[in-house]
């Protein structure tokens, strides 16, 4: 059913943006954790949330 890697909901509930410490939106289709506040999308690679500022995609860039 889920297109994404299926993050553990319990983990998802406590993950926040490492830059702004605000909640994240899980974009299952893209496999990303989106921080609207920081304008960053953190990738999920091989099931690992990569919560690094340097690895995040900027939302204003495609």
């Amino acid at each position, binding site marked *: 059913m889920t297109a994404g890697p299926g993050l553990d909901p*319990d*983990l998802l509930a*406590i*993950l*926040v*943006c*490492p*830059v702004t*410490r605000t*909640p994240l939106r899980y974009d299952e289709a893209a496999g990303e954790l989106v921080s609207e506040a920081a304008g960053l999308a*953190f990738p999920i*690679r*091989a*099931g*690992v*949330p*990569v*919560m*690094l*500022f*340097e690895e995040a995609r900027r939302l204003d860039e495609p």
Partner: protein
Amino acid sequence: MDQPAIFDRSLRRLRRDRAAARFADHAFLVDHMADELAERLAMVTRDFGRVLVLGCHDGRIARRFAALGRRIVNADPGFAFARAAGGVQCDEDRLPFADASFDLVVAVGTLDTVNDLPGALTLIRRVLRPDGLFLGAFAGAGSLAWLKRATLAADSATHGGAAARIHPQVDVRAAGDLLSRAGFALQVADGERLDVGYGDPIRLIHDLRGMAATNILAQRARTAPGRAWLAELFGRFQAEAGPDGRLRESFDLVYLSGWSPSPDQPKPAKRGSATASMIEALRPKG
């Protein structure tokens, strides 16, 4: 975040990824620290429902802290370790966990190479629930004393100056101060020296590489040591080794523990709250 960084974050990740493949061969130091912390935790009569393991390595730390009813979240600054443990990749000084998420945070073997250690400790305190426990261990000041001396001597002999090869290290007292500055209650920092015997200096360097503990200074020496440098290193090793040809290198381990503050904890009485006068009590009788 904008101050000049001591450590190169991306190199730190790379070094951990490189160490991940054969980590079991070089895990003795991390195993020792984790065993010690697990032993200390066993003396705490308390249930810890949700646990964060920071510096999870290949998952070996979490195995020591697994218990019925505990949910463990693994996290590591390196991707390969995070994947091996089924965890999250993150830096300790930029933790991606909400406040009051954990009852216990265990940090093994990585806090010595964090750019913002006070920040990391503050974040650890924040992700703990009130009256949650933090246990940490890392190699601190005094570690690699022989290697420090020997590389300095080899540098002076071959380049006529010192190169930046050994990380700045945190000593026990500073670690204790950092814990209280980070807002922990009932905080304790103590040290333990572990001596490890080596038959030659390359084995030592090999071990350090295997545990992702080689030089990641942002301003590091970038020239590869040449033949003359290595000859100096070997010369010093042979001169200082014991009759069995082995040399003991020290790892000075720092252990930290602290509780996130809670109104129920014992604390010193407020200033001026005493009902008896100290002056009266100390006045000579008669």
